[in-house]
């Protein structure tokens, strides 16, 4: 799995970081970014991040 965050769409609600803290982080502006591409053990958390992101900023590029 590879995942991205669209920084123009991100509103800093923090859903992805809450769902998958090992994958997502916030930069100094409070905008989310992918800190670590997910390992298999994080797939479920990344899917939770995808559905809970309020602005559709999280995209799973390949499964």
């Amino acid at each position, binding site marked *: 799995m590879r995942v991205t965050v669209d920084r123009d769409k991100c509103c800093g609600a923090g859903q992805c*970081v809450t769902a998958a803290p090992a994958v997502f982080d916030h930069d100094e502006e*409070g905008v989310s970014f992918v800190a670590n591409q997910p390992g298999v053990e994080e797939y479920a958390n990344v899917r939770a991040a995808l559905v809970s992101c309020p602005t559709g900023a999280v995209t799973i590029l390949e499964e």
Partner: protein
Amino acid sequence: MDQTIPPARQYSLAPPAECPLDEPRYFTELRSQCPVSTVAVGDQQDVVLFTRYEDVKQILSDTRFSSNPLTPGFPFQGAPGADSPIVAQTMIRQDPPHHTTLRRMAAKDFIPKAVEGYREFVTTTIDEHLDAMATMPSPLDFIEAFALSVPSAVISKILGVPKADEPGFQDLTERVTTLSLTRDEQYAVIDEFTEYCYKLIALKEAHPGDDFVTKLTYERLHKGELTRVELAAYIQMLVSAGHDTTAGMFGLSVLTLLKFPEQLELLKAGARSWPIAIEELVRQHSVVRMGPRRAATDDIEVGGRLVRQGQGVIASILSANHDEEVFGPTAFADFVIPETRRNHLGFGFGPHQCLGQTLARLELGVGLPALFERYPDMRLVEDDLTELEFREGRAFFGLRKLLVHM
């Protein structure tokens, strides 16, 4: 033949008299029979009301539905002062790209790792309130003793509002969210609140502190990125939304868990998790329930209905959060804590989703378990829901008073 079109139903949030904790009955009927309907908001007769979860989510995600009350068609009637030039400048009333710029001025102070930095203060504040309750005569009013004062103290600390100002801003928030005021009265309260915010900004200019208002004053106002009125509007929004909503949730959560002792037992036994319980309480009560309201800036089809450019829309979070197709039975009487987290819309959705949700979760997540641990024998004075005092005619739902024996 003379055909009369029946007047549209007036949009109302009045709950059924026999259960003030349920959604309005007509929401339940609309979802099954007519999920997209036309309602009247004040004298605006053609506002489109969306009641289903998927439709509400779609509208809140689509920024062609404007949040700005000055956009033609915006249904601002019955929403206090929403069309005031000051309120119209708040971050929550902007559309992208300006909304994005304003929101990012605050986002970094409310992301999870920033909020984690407030944990110690939140915990200390809650412990102090729990200690103080032990010395109060029983029964006590939980709203006054805890539900309102804890979130007030927390937001004051974060924003840098002097402790002595708390009763003042609680009163201003109460008045600014009172729906029964006339437009002139609403504007007057907004002016009063704005004056208070100007004083707070001046205080920070004279005595800068390690707080959010100081930061916005020096990093944004003094650099010309925010005008003084924009900053005052920003502070008003953070102050009122930052305490009154969580206050509502504290009172309703305690009431719910005391009414469903078997659910509370599951939490105490570790058979259900507090974070999931809190999500469920936020969903069930949906304290921010006036809308959200929007105005279409284009012809847009949602849920099989074409919304015309310039038409007002209500995407009801309260109704969406009770959509039985997503959540199953959702009357208050059906309350159960699920085993897994459900994606409710209690904090909204889309780019306007609640900025302070992580802070709200922290306050409720520390406060509720600590309260029930410290006072395991707490019980309601009044068991009959219809006898309870709710905040009538207020923008944020909640209890006015909740008497409990500690």
